[in-house]
């Protein structure tokens, strides 16, 4: 085993991988110190690899501004409201993150989510045909996934840019929503009466369950981080410094438990937050830990290189658009559940723009190949809290659009400038 020491260059110290290493020894394996890790991180930031830094700064600014301007912004009631409001946008933005990662765009997700919501609602109508909730949801999700598949087939096989195909999809599915909702009602609004479906975005966990879920999140995160660090160390590889690991775990624990306790003072942790959390963990895992996820990044970075490496680029693109369709369906169901109904404009309005803006503000590059699934959540948090805060201040719609627009512009500028700084240093 290599002598323990924080001074070693990451590139040079290699312990023989085959050597069996006990856990105790493994924890003493070469690791960089916290200060080295931080200085390396700062170096990356200066080189234009900003990671989640801009978004964290942005969130702090938003919290301070609205917290000062309005007393209710930090109220318990508003906190749970925020969790409910951001759920649909976050869910759909996860799908968009995958699409952006391969350097494509999907403009249809708004109305695709509308189609899913309307179809589910129609199938649920009592006695006509009065399907059980799981069948209606299943069919709706299968349908939105199929729509993603169909659009992707045209994009890949006919070579039409995704922008145009999904723009056509935007028109088509907005028409379908309109036709379906006016076909079956005169008012254009269909109420959802199924208690399970309404409960998705209107039920809350009991305080005890809130704590249990919170504890589960923290323990799960800690175990997965420690497992990663341990396996890297036992292979003789450089791992995150333990103090930083501890800091991250404690940080997450503080945020999670503070959130649970705060939500419990109001109605509790929303059920939909748990659904969103599961989706987030699942898709983060897919993106960062699986072969499929690696290929998504590779195709976004260099599609030709991926093709030469034997990756079936078309199949991957199709799968990604199916993910976007599926997550649009989930988001549509969440939205319909929250409003307890669907209407002629379901999936319309500024939903699509909010979803794409969330992914981009979260730090996902429009140029492809760079971004993380969690950025969907962070971006949705920014968008939703700005809109929520402006609602509290009673700003006019026009003002809200203008401000949201400037936030999006700022996010895209940060992306473009950091990319320019990266390439300026990369191709020196």
């Amino acid at each position: 085993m290599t002598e323990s020491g924080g001074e070693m260059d990451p590139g040079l110290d290699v312990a023989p991988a085959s050597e069996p290493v006990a856990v105790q020894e493994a924890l003493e394996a070469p690791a960089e110190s916290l200060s080295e890790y931080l200085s390396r991180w700062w170096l990356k930031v200066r080189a234009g690899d900003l990671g989640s830094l801009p978004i964290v700064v942005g969130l702090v600014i938003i919290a301070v501004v609205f917290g000062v301007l309005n007393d209710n912004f930090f109220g318990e009631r508003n906190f749970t409201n925020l969790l409910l409001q951001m759920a649909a946008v976050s869910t759909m933005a996860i799908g968009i993150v995958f699409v952006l990662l391969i350097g494509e765009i999907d403009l249809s997700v708004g109305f695709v989510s509308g189609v899913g919501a309307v179809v589910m609602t129609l199938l649920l109508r009592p006695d006509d045909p009065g399907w059980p909730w799981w069948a209606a949801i299943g069919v709706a999700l299968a349908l939105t996934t199929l729509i993603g598949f169909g659009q992707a087939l045209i994009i890949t096989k006919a070579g039409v840019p995704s922008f145009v195909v999904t723009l056509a999809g935007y028109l088509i599915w907005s028409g379908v929503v309109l036709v379906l909702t006016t076909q079956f009602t005169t008012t254009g609004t269909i109420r959802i009466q199924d208690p399970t479906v309404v409960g998705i975005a209107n039920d809350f966990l009991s305080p005890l369950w809130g704590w249990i879920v919170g504890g589960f999140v923290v323990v799960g995160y800690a175990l997965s981080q420690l497992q990663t660090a341990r396996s890297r160390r036992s292979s003789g590889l450089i791992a995150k410094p333990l103090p930083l690991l501890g800091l991250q775990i404690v940080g997450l624990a503080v945020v999670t438990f503070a959130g649970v306790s705060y939500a419990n003072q109001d109605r509790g942790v929303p059920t939909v937050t748990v659904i969103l959390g599961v989706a987030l963990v699942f898709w983060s895992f897919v993106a960062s830990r699986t072969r499929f996820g690696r290929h998504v990044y590779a195709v976004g970075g260099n599609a030709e290189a991926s093709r030469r490496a034997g990756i079936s680029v078309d199949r991957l693109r199709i799968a990604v658009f199916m993910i976007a369709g599926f997550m649009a369906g989930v988001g549509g169901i969440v939205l319909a559940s929250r409003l307890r109904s669907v209407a002629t404009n379901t999936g319309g309005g500024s939903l699509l723009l909010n979803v794409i803006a969330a992914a981009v503000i979260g730090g996902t590059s429009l140029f492809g190949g760079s971004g993380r699934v969690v950025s969907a959540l962070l971006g949705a948090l920014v968008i939703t809290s700005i809109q929520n805060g402006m609602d509290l201040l009673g700003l006019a719609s026009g003002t809200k659009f203008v401000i949201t627009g400037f936030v999006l512009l700022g996010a895209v500028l940060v992306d473009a400038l950091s990319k320019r700084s990266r390439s300026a240093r990369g191709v020196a």
Partner: protein
Amino acid sequence: MSDAPLLECKGVSKAFGAVQALHRVDFEIRRGEVMALVGDNGAGKSTLIKGIAGIHPFDEGEIYFDGERVNIHGPRDAAKLGIEVVFQDLALADNLDVVGNMFLGRERTRWGFVLDESSMENAAQETMEGLSVTSLRSVRQTVAGLSGGQRQAVAVAKSVMWNSLELILDEPTAALGVAQTRQVLDLVRRLAEKDLGVVIISHNLHDIFEVADRITVLRLGQRVALLERSKTTQEEVVHAITAGALDHVPGMADAGADGG
């Protein structure tokens, strides 16, 4: 060692629309040999190696690998045989780190889908050290931040890691300075000493006369010469490149398409 060449192409042709890029070309490479592939722009060098690599499969002709007839319909077929190509554009994904690029398309996994990062990182590091690539700070660096020479090293290491039997290098020294060219040429000789068949495409005759054992000259999609390095001169090679005798005189349409 068998007497059959490691790879032998017999009468391979390839057309892109009206342009006959390759016309019944024979090409062979033995184990432990550095074969240079030279020719002017548009002579068909790239088309030949893309055919061997399965990227643009040949229209006709036969390919023998270790004396056995093989079909190469895609990059995977070529990779299975142990044929690896390092293209001039290197085909690296800038946003992935060195490990991600070296294992692209052939990731090591657990349970078939979860990446085994530790094992890949170790293997990548061992390969880099085996090739005496020392300028790299960490195999976890993204490729976007590497210099031209480092990128070339990553691309070569990526190919070597797959225990390839035949390595094709497309203009490996074109973008490099003197010292780094030296390193790459040394690397090429070392690969041949490991009994690999190495094909090197280059416009730089000086480089070629330094590393190659034999030289294949293409002109207008045909092979016009196969020369032993020790029995030829740079003048002879230049003459073959510019005025080598063609077996098949291109028709008017062909000549027009070749752009003169």
